[in-house]
């Protein structure tokens, strides 16, 4: 091997030693804590994409720079991942050798008695016959479950090994948690789908409104189930309008074609198939309308998903009819329990449907659907359109405008299902449980040594790791015992 290679190797070894010291692991953990802060101060794409867009419109210049630093995706940014990975490596490099050492030490005897006991803590000499001192001390220390090393002239006793056991268990568990998180993000998937009452959801990628796969997860790995939403019941508190219960009833078949089973999904109790869970995440209303053209021919009949705008489920949405000539778009609001004020206009006073209204403004012209630019289904791009009507419809009312008519037929509720496949979470959970056990063990055991030495007199002394309290008492108890008082 030539010299430069050797020095490279030495450098690597040095770097590895540095990285795997407990101190570095600790620093990296601290760094991870600091690195997490900006994610709670700036809006994050993964949590609130709308807020990010808003930030971009309000501070375009600043936002561009923040985005370059990945401050809107802190937790998936390269710098955050780098800290996380380094911590992971550092922990492994630090903990594995220590574990092996500790396993070896479990069978071993405590270390030799030091030469000068008066340099240790609480050194004192004891009035006891020299020939009995060691026997008495051994008997006493054994009864206190110390581990004993008996030599000709001395005893070295140690207690509290489980401190290191706990410490290692804790750090190993942290690794397990990180592994669990990693598995979840590489082999899992997460998606959302809006399903109306009466509709059927089949678990294939095309049924989702959005779906994100882990790097190593394939589309074929979605488990083949189908759900038919049979009912959704939301209950609200009359005094506060706050929701008090949501109950979603489905007929579930797993795999598709199997016998359908009735299931109930609630907010805190998802439907579970292995590692896949189906959560009830949000709900709203789809108003049902019939649209006719000038000749009276039905051009659209059915429900359209509207998005809730407030706690009382005032909802807004768009109904688009690109096939009518000319194209028609309705910008609409659905109000489940109608009220109005001068300031806000029509709004909902209660989230349940008690006195519904549909507010529509009718636009004609070019919907812009074939421009190639993706468009929100909840909004009409009115830039190339003109408004030809405005109406407020109670149930079963019809509004006639120059190109046709719209009838408000009713409504049905929809729910947003979140479907998550996380094969790593059990590892994370076990990691978390062991981490707590390890912590308890290491924080509440005191590791200390006690020595008894016979020379021209009988001396005792001790040493407590990390200045744990209680050693003084143990030494004085031993002294009392030996002196037979």
């Amino acid at each position, binding site marked *: 091997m030539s010299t430069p290679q050797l020095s490279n190797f030495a450098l690597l070894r040095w770097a590895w030693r540095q990285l795997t010291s407990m101190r570095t692991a600790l620093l990296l953990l601290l760094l991870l804590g600091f690195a997490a802060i900006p994610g709670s101060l700036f809006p994050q794409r993964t949590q609130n994409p709308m807020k990010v867009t808003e930030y971009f419109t309000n501070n375009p210049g600043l936002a561009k720079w923040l985005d370059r630093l990945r401050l809107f995706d802190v937790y998936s940014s390269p710098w955050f991942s780098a800290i996380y990975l380094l911590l992971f490596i550092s922990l492994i490099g630090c903990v594995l050798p220590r574990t092996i050492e500790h396993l070896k030490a479990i069978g071993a005897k405590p270390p030799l008695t030091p030469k000068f006991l008066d340099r240790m803590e609480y050194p004192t000499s004891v009035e006891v016959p020299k020939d009995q001192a060691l026997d008495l001390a051994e008997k006493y220390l054994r009864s206190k479950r110390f581990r004993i090393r008996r030599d000709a002239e001395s005893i070295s006793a140690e207690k509290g090994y489980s401190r290191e056991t706990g410490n290692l268990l804790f750090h190993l568990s942290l690794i397990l948690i990180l592994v669990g998180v990693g598995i979840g993000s590489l082999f899992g998937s997460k998606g959302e789908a809006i399903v109306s009452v009466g509709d059927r959801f089949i678990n294939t990628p095309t049924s989702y409104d959005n779906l994100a796969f882990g790097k190593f997860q394939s589309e074929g790995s979605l488990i083949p189930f189908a759900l038919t939403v049979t009912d959704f019941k939301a209950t609200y508190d009359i005094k506060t309008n706050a929701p008090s219960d949501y109950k979603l009833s489905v007929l579930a078949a797993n795999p598709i074609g199997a016998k359908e089973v009735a299931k109930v999904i609630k907010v805190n109790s998802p439907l579970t198939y292995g590692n896949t869970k189906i959560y009830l*995440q949000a709900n709203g209303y789809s108003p049902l309308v019939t649209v006719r053209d000038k000749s009276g021919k039905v051009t659209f009949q059915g429900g359209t998903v509207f998005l809730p705008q407030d706690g009382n489920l005032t909802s807004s949405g768009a109904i688009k009819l690109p096939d009518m000539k000319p194209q028609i778009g309705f910008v609409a609001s659905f109000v489940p329990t109608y009220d109005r004020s001068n300031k806000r206009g029509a709004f909902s006073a209660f989230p349940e449907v008690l006195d519904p209204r549909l507010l529509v403004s009718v636009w004609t012209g070019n919907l812009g659907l074939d421009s190639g630019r993706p468009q929100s289904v909840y909004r009409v791009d009115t830039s190339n359109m003109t408004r030809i009507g405005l109406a407020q419809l109670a149930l079963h009312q019809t509004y006639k405008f120059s190109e046709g008519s719209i009838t408000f037929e009713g409504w049905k509720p929809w729910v947003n299902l979140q479907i998550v496949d996380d094969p790593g979470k059990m590892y994370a959970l076990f990691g978390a449980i062991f981490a707590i056990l390890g912590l308890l063990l290491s*924080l509440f055991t005191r590791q200390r040594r006690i020595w008894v030495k016979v020379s021209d007199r009988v001396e005792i002394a001790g040493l407590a790791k990390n200045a744990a309290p209680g050693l003084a008492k143990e030494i004085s108890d031993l002294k009392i015992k030996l002196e037979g008082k």
Partner: protein
Amino acid sequence: MTSTNYAYLSNYAIYSAMVLYTIAFFAHSIEVAFSVRSDEVKTKFDFARTDRAGRIGSAMIFLAFIFIFIGVIFRGISAHRVPWGNMYEFSITGALAFTGSYLVALWKYKLRWLGLPVSIAVLLTLGTAITVLYRPSAPLVPALKSTWLAIHVSAAIASGGVFLLANCIAATYLILDSYESKGLPRPNWAKQLPSLESLDQLSYRLVAFVFPLWTFAVIAGAIWAESAWGRYWGWDPKETWAFITWVAYAAYLHARVTVGWRGRKAAWLCLFAGSTFLFNYIYVNIWGTGRHTYSGL
């Protein structure tokens, strides 16, 4: 008994606890005022008497604890759920946790000198709770309907109580340390307080004691988040700051145990860690973003 009766009883219990705390406040004031003076000036009060005042204070706080406990339980019964659904309920439970951790610390370490600040803090908390934050007893939003509410929130509130107690002690340490390092004698009010070493040790003991509980609270939150929100960790602001608090206390414990920090540096780190907890409580609850604001489904 009907729900309304329980709600009334709960309120009476909280009022009674406030009365008891007021008595405790006076008892501890007497203790502090006179036992200190007996050091230098002769007064009618000798040590035995002020000691009795202190004991009365402790007894009142113990009774108050029982009353707050009843108040919290009856609040829960009246609403048919665990009593942690709004800020009023968090506050009375927080007062319960703070009182409880003081009593445990009082029993394990001689902490009676904290009686006066503890009475003041709890009286303020209960006072604002019952006047400003009070809400009639009502059902929970669906996301909170889970046994994890009981587990997660009680663990979080209890650890919060102890963290704040540790912060009080660390702050006391720093104040007294600033006298001592200038070579000044302790001020009168502090004559009875323990030595700097025991203050230092005490705040460490408290933190080491609740750190596992805090870890548990965060993990319980994660388990709950998994069943309510579909992921066990999502860097929601509350989660992020819980993690930061966790890291800060972990750093504190390591700094003491592995690096051997003591005294002033350790006290500052303890205060820092405690303030990340307070920041989480204030920032996320008041400028609430994220899912911990319980805006419904």
